[in-house]
């Protein structure tokens, strides 16, 4: 029992509620949200240390032992993602200070931002399937508000689709929960794992597993991603960045959790489906990224490619592949926030998202240009930046698992990622300078600080891969041996 486990969910939630009371005081909102994110970061570092030294930390809410109460479980995988979440959220927030505008600030931008963080953290930490649904909904409702906030035409149009898709997928989630409860009689993830291991994963359970996979794929943008490019290009840059960094990753996390902890008995069915969908996602995403000439669309399709690539690691299901997936997940959260912020700044400066209408930005913005170059290299996995290590391990894992086609698709799409993002770089930053300093639509004042921070993080993550490797390896080992999770949750009590 460790009360620290629920802190990353509680702090932003309570502070968000307090901030709603002081609506007019935007300065207070800004300070409070920065302090909150710092606090979550500190606590997640402490939690990381505790998990590292004394094993998986759990909290049984209300003191009810595992299958009866709601469990909160912090293993290395979850804590790594929470730490990354707070690292990513901070620059997006600072970026929002300068760009989000007075209206959105007055209409509860910061509380909604914190509720989103609370939902994301809760989804990472919870050890109960229904509680996962509740945290998903907390996150989704905040994202509905964030995506439609401001009420521009394109935002409203895209948010209707976004809300409808997510409402329907939540319903499918509930159906899957109902079926799973009827089959196993429990919703605690550890208890589910025990029950399914006892009875064996029959056809009915596998069907429910695939239904759950469909639900999480909808949220993660895996294969069922047709809503994603529109929705992610509608809201302002800071919001799009936090969406691209966090929302799809929660779906990926849920897929990982379910298919390593609960439904791991029929890999020749489930993991093959996961692999095929991962490959299709990468191919279709790459086609989209290469075909478009609008910055926002290119970036949104890059989100999809990364989802397919991370899932390829799960499909191979070897130790190396899982290490690669976790490393790439952490890297991807950071790099997606960075690349969305960079793209948004380019749009802000030139006043258009079309690559054909912008050119030569590097003359007036050398810092921005070089940081975009570093981010582009990191995104496509050029050593020594952070994308490389994950890519190596995932490729190694797919080859070890004899899924050569999957590894090949991953490597080929990496080239297409490089092409698509270099297209942005060359069209946007090279060539004749169209806009003089005076003609620019916006200034980058104060925006380079959060972008620079994320750039430093992605370089550090690449150069310091050794330092983070012990955590990643521990997380992968815990994913491969579910009994660690089960023992931690039940804590020596008899399992009913």
């Amino acid at each position, binding site marked *: 029992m460790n009360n620290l486990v629920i802190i990353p969910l509680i702090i932003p939630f309570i502070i968000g509620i307090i901030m709603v009371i002081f609506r007019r005081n935007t300065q207070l909102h800004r300070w409070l949200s920065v302090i909150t994110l710092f606090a979550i970061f500190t606590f997640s570092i402490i939690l990381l240390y505790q998990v590292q030294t004394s094993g998986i930390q759990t909290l049984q809410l209300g003191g009810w032992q595992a299958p009866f109460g709601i469990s909160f479980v912090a293993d290395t995988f979850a804590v790594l993602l929470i730490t990354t979440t707070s690292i990513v959220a901070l620059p997006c927030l600072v970026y929002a200070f300068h760009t989000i505008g007075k209206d959105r600030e007055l209409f509860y931008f910061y509380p909604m931002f914190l509720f989103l963080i609370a939902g994301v953290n809760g989804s990472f930490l919870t050890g109960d399937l229904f509680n996962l649904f*509740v945290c998903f*909904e907390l996150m989704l409702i905040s994202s*509905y508000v964030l995506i439609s906030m401001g009420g521009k*035409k*394109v935002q*409203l149009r895209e948010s209707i689709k976004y809300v409808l898709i997510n409402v*329907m997928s939540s319903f499918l989630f509930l159906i899957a929960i109902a079926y799973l409860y009827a089959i196993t009689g429990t919703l605690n993830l550890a208890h589910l794992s025990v029950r399914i291991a006892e009875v064996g994963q029959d056809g009915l359970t596998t069907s429910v597993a695939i239904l759950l996979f469909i639900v999480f794929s909808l949220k993660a943008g895996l294969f069922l991603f047709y809503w994603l490019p529109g929705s992610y290009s509608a809201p302002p840059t800071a919001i799009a960045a936090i969406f691209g960094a966090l929302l799809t990753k929660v779906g990926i996390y849920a897929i990982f959790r379910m298919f390593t902890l609960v439904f791991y008995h029929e890999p020749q069915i489930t993991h093959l489906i996961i692999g095929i969908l991962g490959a299709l996602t990468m191919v279709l995403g790459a086609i989209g990224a290469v075909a478009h000439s609008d910055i926002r669309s290119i970036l949104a399709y890059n989100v999809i490619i990364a989802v397919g690539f991370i899932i390829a690691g799960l499909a191979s299901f070897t130790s190396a592949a899982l290490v690669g997936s976790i490393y790439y997940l952490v890297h991807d959260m950071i790099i997606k926030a960075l690349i969305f912020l960079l793209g948004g700044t380019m749009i802000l400066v030139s006043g258009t998202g079309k690559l054909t209408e912008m050119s030569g930005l590097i003359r007036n913005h050398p810092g921005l240009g070089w940081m975009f170059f570093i981010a582009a290299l990191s995104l496509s996995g050029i050593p020594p930046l952070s994308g490389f290590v994950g890519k190596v391990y995932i490729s190694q894992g797919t080859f070890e698992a004899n899924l050569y086609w999957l590894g090949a698709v991953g490597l080929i799409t990496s080239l297409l990622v490089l092409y698509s993002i270099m297209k942005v770089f060359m069209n946007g930053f090279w060539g004749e300078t169209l806009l003089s300093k005076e003609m620019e639509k916006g200034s980058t004042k104060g925006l380079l600080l959060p972008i620079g921070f994320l750039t430093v993080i992605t370089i550090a993550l690449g150069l310091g891969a050794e330092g983070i490797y012990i955590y990643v390896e521990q997380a992968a080992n815990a994913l491969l041996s579910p009994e660690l999770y089960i023992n931690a949750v039940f804590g020596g009590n008899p399992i009913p």
Partner: protein
Amino acid sequence: METLIAILVGILMTIGTYLVLTKSLLRIILGTSIIGHAIHLLILTMGGLKTGGPPLLGLENTSYTDALPQALVLTSIVINFAVTGLFLVLAYRSYQVLGTDNMDQLRGIEDE
């Protein structure tokens, strides 16, 4: 009884799906609401309808009804109401701004 409820769930799902596939935004929202109710019934049914006494410690029964599905449904209903409310507001606002509630006319326009 379970069979009856299962058939009811099927009918409600059919109606809801039909409504979601229509063009009017308001009908779509009503459709999601009806699907939501169907799923709440499904959760109750899948947990098993009343099979024993009420789950209270003071009552000396040999078997008790499972109380968990009701707790789940309660949470789910609250969330569903919140989302439906937000969706209705969103639909009203977009009707004001976009001037239509026909989904066909909400297709993407390239120049935005």
